[in-house]
């Protein structure tokens, strides 16, 4: 290589790695990504289509598969809105106000992430199961929670509990209260402030939290497996249906249903990336704004 560099490029060179090292690091990283991410993902779809497209479609003609899909959609349609309301509410209280015990509350909101899914399922068995706190009372009144849909909803709500709140809290903290206070001075009501000022500011973060919450709600396995009771056609969600098919050596059918879930994961990743790129562009636009209207995020960062 020639030594006749101009000073700027030379300065960049001096804090970078030699080309061979760069290439080696990139190759190792890509190899790791290929082995641990791309291969497993590709395997789902190839295994599903191994015996052709007709065999793939066969898996969805089974009524049990349909009831599993419907149950998964129903569970998600209940769990995600519940955690959405909670997430917005928790983020409003934690990000907009100062109060005693805030750090403890924030930690407790994150708690379900650290609890093993199996333990998450078990605790509802201990509360609502036959030997549980409310077991005898529920039995006397002929209400089924464990080994029925309500138990699956509860377990799903537990494991997806923090997703939306933890996306919103740092976002709303970074944005501060100035815009809401300004709206208030101008005479806006609480709802108006939320719908017209806060929501437009947090909508991407909110959507991001919702899609992550949705993906986890549809895919949850451990917690749901404890409370479901595995009744075919009644309390089997899609991941549980995959497990049953797999254990019955119906590999193609198992991977066919699994491929729907993998597709959901891919869609989630695409939406997530789009939101991130949108946010980056927004940040760049805000940074380029003229100083007479100081960009909120850039100012607080």
């Amino acid at each position, binding site marked *: 290589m020639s030594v006749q560099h101009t000073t700027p490029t030379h300065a960049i060179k001096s804090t970078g790695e030699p080309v061979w090292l760069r290439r080696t690091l990139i190759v190792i990283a890509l190899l790791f990504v290929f082995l641990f991410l791309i291969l497993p993902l590709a395997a789902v779809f190839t295994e599903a289509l191994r015996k052709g497209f007709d065999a793939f479609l066969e898996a969805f003609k089974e009524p049990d598969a349909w009831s599993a899909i419907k149950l998964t959609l129903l569970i998600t349609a209940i769990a995600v809105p519940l955690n959405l309301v909670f997430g917005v509410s928790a983020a409003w209280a934690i990000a907009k106000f100062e109060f005693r015990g805030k750090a403890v509350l924030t930690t407790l909101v994150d708690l379900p992430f650290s609890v093993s899914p199996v333990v998450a399922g078990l605790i509802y*068995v*201990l509360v609502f199961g036959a030997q549980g706190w409310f077991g005898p009372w529920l039995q006397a009144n002929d209400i089924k929670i464990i080994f029925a849909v309500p138990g699956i909803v509860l377990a799903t709500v537990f494991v997806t509990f923090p997703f939306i709140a933890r996306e919103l809290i740092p976002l709303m903290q970074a944005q501060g209260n100035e815009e809401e206070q300004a709206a208030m001075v101008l005479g806006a009501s609480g709802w108006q402030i939320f719908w017209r000022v806060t929501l437009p500011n947090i909508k991407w973060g909110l959507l991001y939290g919702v899609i992550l919450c949705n993906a986890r709600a549809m895919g949850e396995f451990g917690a749901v497996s404890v409370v479901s009771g595995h009744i075919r056609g009644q309390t089997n969600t899609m991941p549980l249906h995959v497990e049953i098919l797999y254990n019955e050596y119906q590999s193609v059918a198992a991977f066919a249903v699994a491929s729907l879930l993998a597709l959901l994961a891919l869609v989630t990743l695409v939406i997530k990336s789009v939101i991130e790129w949108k946010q980056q562009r927004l940040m760049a636009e805000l940074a380029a704004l003229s100083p007479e209207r100081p960009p909120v995020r850039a100012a607080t960062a």
Partner: protein
Amino acid sequence: MSSLILPTLRHQPARVLPGFEITLGFTIAYLSLIVLIPLSALVFKTLNLTWEQFWQAVTAPRVVASYKLTIGASFIAALVNAFFGLLLAWVLVRYQFFGKKIVDALVDLPFALPTAVAGISLTALLAGNGWVGQYLEPLGIQLAFNRNGVLIALIFIGLPFVVRTVQPILEDVEKELEEAATCLGATRWQTFSRVIFPALAPALLTGFAMAFARAIGEYGSVIFIAGNMPMVSEITPLIIISKLEQYDYAGATAVALVMLCAAFVMLLLINGLQAWQRARSGASS
């Protein structure tokens, strides 16, 4: 600016915006109903056991073997993730290459892919007749249906944590510091180990702890690939499930309480690490 407002805020309530009572009230009520009260059931149900019963349940040889496997495999998986996570974050932040955006998006796949799908897919790859397994089996390497399988599943599910904690910190590392180190005669390796790495260390440790905590509780992806042999490749969450299937609720509850305590310790540790990281990045900027 804040010094001007503060004195007045001290005397009158600082809560100008509406909705504090109702959102905080709802948050605490929902948290209690969904998380705190059910979790307390675990503690109260365990209190029904005598100390001997509890001790016997949580120290049975099969259970202890599962702790060793779960903790050991989680630790090794988190180490592997720390190394490759740092490498991936580095490559994604510092270098340009074809397909970078796709790789960046794919890193989150283990978060988005249901664990059961990951489990059967890794098993299909690594079993003796699988894509990868068929080349390894003649060499005497078996990666499925034993402890190796547990490790691989745990590496998969912990992969995004280190990348996603290190990446933003690496983006913020000031290039000027590196240039200064280079000007002062440091080699590239010295600059990395003495300037860049110390700045990343808190984030790296946080990511490591998160991957470790997640791995300890993981169930779905592991059980398909582990083979689940008692004393050999049986993880602790599976012990709880099998106790439940034998209607041994007391035993399941006792082991679950041990796992819950482990989760609490990890949560506090991660919180501490994050506070350290904030203090570090606050001090440097």
